[in-house]
């Protein structure tokens, strides 16, 4: 599954503002490319059926 590059670029723009994490215009294309790669590999996880009872791996010990 490949993600829409324009949508990924929009994600960068929006979250850059939300997180007050400026992305210089010179880096925007490269950052977008990596977001697309990450979203693409993450699809391997979202499409995989996990049993409901599986919790996140790190367990907090008080």
């Amino acid at each position, binding site marked *: 599954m490949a993600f829409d590059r324009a949508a990924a670029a929009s*994600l*960068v723009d929006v*979250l*850059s503002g939300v*997180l*007050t*994490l*400026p*992305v*210089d215009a010179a*880096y925007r294309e*490269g*950052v*977008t*490319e*990596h*977001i697309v*790669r*990450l*979203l693409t*590999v*993450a699809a*391997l*996880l*979202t499409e*995989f059926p*996990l*049993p409901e009872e*599986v*919790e*996140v*791996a*790190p367990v907090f010990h008080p």
Partner: protein
Amino acid sequence: MSAPDACALAADIRARRVSARETVEAVLARIGALNPTVNCFTDVLADRARRDAAGVDARVAAGSNPGPLAGVPFAVKNLFDVAGISTLAGSRLYRERPPAVRDAAAIRALAAAGAILVGTLNMDEFAYGFTTENSHYGPTRNPHDLTRVAGGSSGGSGAAVAAGLVPIALGSDTNGSIRVPASFCGVFGFKPTYGRISRAGTVLFAGSFDHVGPLARSVRDLAAAFDLMQGPDQDDPVCSERPTSATTPELARGLENLRIAVADGYFATGADPEALEATAEVAGSLGVTRRVAFPEPQRARAAAMVITAAEGSHQHLELLRTRAADFDPLTRDRFLAGAFIPAALVLRAQRFRAWYRERVREMFQSVDVVIAPTTPCVAPFIGKTDWGRVGGFEVPVRAHLGLFTQPLSFIGLPVISMPVVRNGQLPLGVQLVGPPWSEARLLRVASTLEATGVVGSREPPHHA
């Protein structure tokens, strides 16, 4: 190989066949001669090394025990704190930081055994890479072919050991950063179980699966260093309270009662033929024909990539906000991208991690040690690691180098990368993988293979 390993050197020093002072002077001279070419050291600690060597020689002369690694020079990836110098973590920005006030826990463990720290070693910026093509400090060159990368992110560690500059170096491994340079440089690399060795005093990358461990030219050196460093440490929140057990006494036990198999499926594809042949050679020498398949390793690697990007980015978020221009161009875009991953995907990756851990535990109910390739290819050329052909496909080379290492460190399994003897060819490593806390078993198998000559570290030809 001609240079003695750490255990042999320590024996010589204890027996006064050579002094620690002479050893350190020889190492400093060799670093001075070779480092301008190999570029593995970023700081050389000559004064400290000479002072420590004098201390070892004094203990030997006084007849007191100088420690099991008496006078053995070692070096560390420059993300380990060393008292008196700034901890670089491969970053130009960290050069501005104040000097560390205390050595990292792993350094203290080796130094307490008489080992002598001689310097710090180059790495990919903040450990985010597999090639040590560091834009700030220059690329580390592979001692077996100076036009090729040393691997990464502990590339300086792999190169320093391979070049015979130190018998032991420390590295860190999040996704393969000890094992990839060990494979490319033709040395042994050992990533113990997550939480077995303290990471206190190191710059973390992705804390969920950051490990530290040794690289060396012999299995007994790996075991000696591991035995000194393993154990609980309250200064590292993920360090295990589990009791330790010395591995060195186990090395001679051989393969008795061990169930060994070769990783199939995912681990038998996507690689150049010579990487798969090296794995087959190791398996064949042990008479291993059984094959096992890890459950969903491709998704495990995907999850490792997602968590690494998110945690790594978070680790350096403030610098990304204010000093992004000072990051290495090879890491900057990836660090920035990691900040924008939706939480739902990161948590999904962590849930998958728990699922995968349980399935792998089940797999290890019927097998003790699994053999797998370390890298899918030999070391690529410096500056040509963007895109290239590996395993018959055009791939992003830098990322692809972690193909076989990421699904294993992702759940903290202990792994040794062993250099397969391939005379006249570039080095390649093969991994031994076990369930958590099975370090002694892995070292037994590696020691057996080393004794038969199937694996072993060979000196680079141009340094003869």
